[in-house]
């Protein structure tokens, strides 16, 4: 008991000292401005469960700022923002979404405001676009399976393995496989279009998924629930961060980091032009990119810090060490926009439907 108190005291001590050290670069004006605004509105696709440690910590740093955090799905964020921007009714102070392509499209269409974060120097070059769109994390895109249902020796270790497994044991895996619905989920669309970019064999995989009558969902959470319950045996294109978090609660969850290639995406944050509390938005962006925020991401939120100088369980550095060249980060840049072109998008979805025999 005394030991616990001691630890708590040390943690408290650290918490008291840290703020001073953490934001050496933070300008006083910005902090004062944000505190004067007194409010921060975030539209985000990061599950509240993962975001909560960050929000709590931010609130402890700036108790005078009230935080409104809306956990929406990626396309909801996009739609809501576009409607609000068009109505000119004012909107969120920070958009933080894993649908990198949709985020970039918004910024590209002039909806963002430039802000040079003091943390820029600590980020990879490819993670910042025009000082507007910031990649904040680097998260593995995994396969997730139920350890009770899939014996260790049957677990696929690569995309090719997975395709082969589904084709060879189609009757066993019928109705037992889940993946994102690219028609309904922005991030789901991003992942399959990136798959196609990296791997020419993607359509074989899609056909194999169709062969086992894959079930499609709008979120990782929904898929994890059903893998955890055993309704599905394995799920494809699972956001590894949520898988890791779920694993803490349910040891039956297993994660595969595919060896042939593994996509890694980054939650993009930007500050909209119509932000009602722009200073608070900037302050929160800086916090997300700061060492303090990233350390929480690596150890508590488990959404994989993007900075190199952060130690912990979920870090970009760890992923690079494990996968080396096979790690394929999706870069923050206009390349993301090609798949969004309306005709290309519909063509892709049509082909996807055909592969799934829907």
């Amino acid at each position, binding site marked *: 008991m005394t030991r616990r108190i001691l630890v708590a005291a040390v943690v408290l001590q650290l918490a008291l000292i840290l703020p001073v050290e953490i934001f050496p670069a933070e300008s006083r004006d910005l902090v004062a401005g944000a505190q004067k605004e007194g409010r921060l509105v975030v539209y985000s696709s990061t599950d*509240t469960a993962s975001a909560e440690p960050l929000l709590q910590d931010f609130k402890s740093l700036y108790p005078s700022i009230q935080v409104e955090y809306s956990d929406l799905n990626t396309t909801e964020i996009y739609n809501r923002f576009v409607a609000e921007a068009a109505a000119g009714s004012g909107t969120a102070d920070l958009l933080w979404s894993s649908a990198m392509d949709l985020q970039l499209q918004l910024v590209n269409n002039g909806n963002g405001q430039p802000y040079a974060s003091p943390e820029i120097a600590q980020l990879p070059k490819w993670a910042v676009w025009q000082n507007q769109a910031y990649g904040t994390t680097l998260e593995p895109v995994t396969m997730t399976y139920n350890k009770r249902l899939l014996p260790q020796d049957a677990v696929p270790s690569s995309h090719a393995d997975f395709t082969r497994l589904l084709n060879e044991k189609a009757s066993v895996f019928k109705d037992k496989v889940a993946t994102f619905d690219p*028609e309904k989920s922005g991030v789901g669309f991003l992942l399959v279009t990136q798959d196609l970019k990296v791997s020419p064999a993607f359509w074989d995989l899609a056909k194999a998924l169709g062969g086992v009558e894959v079930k499609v969902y709008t979120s990782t959470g929904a*898929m994890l629930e059903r893998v955890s319950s*055993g309704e599905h045996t394995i799920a494809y294109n699972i956001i590894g961060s949520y898988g890791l978090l779920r694993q803490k609660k349910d040891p039956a969850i297993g994660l595969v980091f595919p060896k042939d290639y593994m996509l890694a995406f980054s939650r993009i944050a930007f500050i909209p032009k119509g932000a009602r509390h722009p200073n608070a938005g900037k302050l929160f962006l800086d916090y997300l990119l700061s060492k303090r925020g990233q350390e929480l991401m690596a150890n508590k939120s488990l959404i994989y810090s993007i900075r190199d100088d952060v130690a912990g369980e979920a870090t970009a550095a760890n992923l690079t060490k494990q996968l080396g060249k096979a790690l394929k980060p999706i870069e923050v840049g206009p390349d993301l926009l090609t798949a969004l072109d309306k005709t290309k998008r519909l063509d892709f979805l049509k082909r996807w439907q055909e592969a799934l025999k829907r």
Partner: protein
Amino acid sequence: MKLSILRPLVALGAILAVFAPLGLLLYQSLLSAPFFDPAARASFEAYRYILAQPDFHRAFGSSFLISLGMTLIAAPLGSLLGFLIARTDLPGRHWLEPWILVPVFLSPVVMAFGYVVAVGPVGFFSLWAKSLFGFVPWKLYSFAGLIAIAGLTHVPHVFLYVSAALRGIDPAVEEAARVTGAGPWRIAFTISLPLVWPAILFSGALVFLLGFELFGLPLVLGDPAGLLVLTTYLYKLTNLLGVPSYQLMAVVAIAIVAITFPLVYLQRRLLGASSRYAVIGGKGRAFRPLPLGALRWPMTAWVVLWLLAVVALPLAGVALRSVVRSWGEGVVLLDVLTLDHFRSLWQYPNLVRGIVNTLLIGGLGGAAAVAAYTLLALSAHRLPGLWPALLDYLVLVPRALPGLIVGLAFFWLFLFFKPIAPLRSTLFSLWIAYTVVWLAYGIKLITATLMQVKPELEEAARVIGASPLLVYRDVTVPLIRFGLVGSWLLIFMMFVREYSTGVYLLGPGTEVIGSLIVSLWGTGALDLISALSVIEVLIVGLALFTALRLGVKLDA
């Protein structure tokens, strides 16, 4: 204020509240782009696009088949149930009766989610069946599964109308048949049910109509397998093109209304026709229930079994999921028990606000809605002329509009109509949408209550010189106050249960449990969903208990 001023004001308010959203939908459907887009121009492009989509046709076909299927299940079962409860000596019919209406007050999303945990592929009940038979004898995520659940959960709607109509039949007719030697089945099928044929037809049309408005059940049970109905297709259109396609959503909304409106009109005609059946007399007679004989207990067992399937099973599923960390094949439930989900609810300010807002919109909002419905009903109370007839049809319009669509239209209105824009992120926007969605129900409740006031009482007050407003204030309204409290409780439950109307209006400040569940369903946070569902069911249960204790008739 004079009644002559008040009445047109009330009328105008009601007309605006009903037609503004519908008008906006129609207008949007005729544009080539979202109505706020400067590039939008008048065209039928959106109609052409939607009508060419195979998905739209499939969704339409599924909606039609589901409506048909659930009507074929609910109409016979509901009629039979009505006969058993209203006319026979079914054991336990008095304590069974309030339970029969419980499914009406449960949120379909909550029920669907409960079914997943109970009888889904790895649900606890399915696993039990699997241990018995070696396989699971049913398939929840199938067309048949969806139809069966939709049909069974809509039995109360038929029961409501058929039992009420049966109670109006002169028992002498049935007794005459019994004396001449007819058994209970013969009486049911050749005397009682044919006499209430209009009520059966009416409630059948109602269930058919509700089939087109189903949202929660197909969202949860049909989506993963790619089974689309019109409402879920509309929901999907939010995202399909990667850009907001309001014009396409409006077209689908109009398509739904084009089907539901004639159905509502048909219902209205059927209701008119039913009063022409003259055997239904008003005289109270000593009523002797028909003896069921040997069928007594099997029939009770059947009713109890049905209740278990539509109330106990899904609620047990929800309750179970709310206290475990994980579930399913190979999980020992005792190892995973936890109360963490309820505890963690308090860490999410938006969820806490959602619970508070739900109570507010049910309590205060419900009271305000009852006040609005009362004003509206009074404005046409015992009045000859155009307005009462018009009101009669006016309340039918929202009946044809699914909550999802009303919510969407109000979201647009509050977004772009500047004078009311600041109200968008307040509960007011939600309140007005809810009030419009439940307009027909509310007016029916109030009118039924008003009819209990004998005209003599109001006339007496008039004779001694009271103005019409004074009569309402001092005579009519005080006389119906118990009925108003009952209406408020019923509206409270409907508002708490409501989930689809708030989907598009959901934002900081307008969170309610129902729409939070739909939104969280998208993100897959089932720990939270299950805890929220339990809380919602508890709130509704408490209101239901109070209503029953107060003697409020649920079938108003």
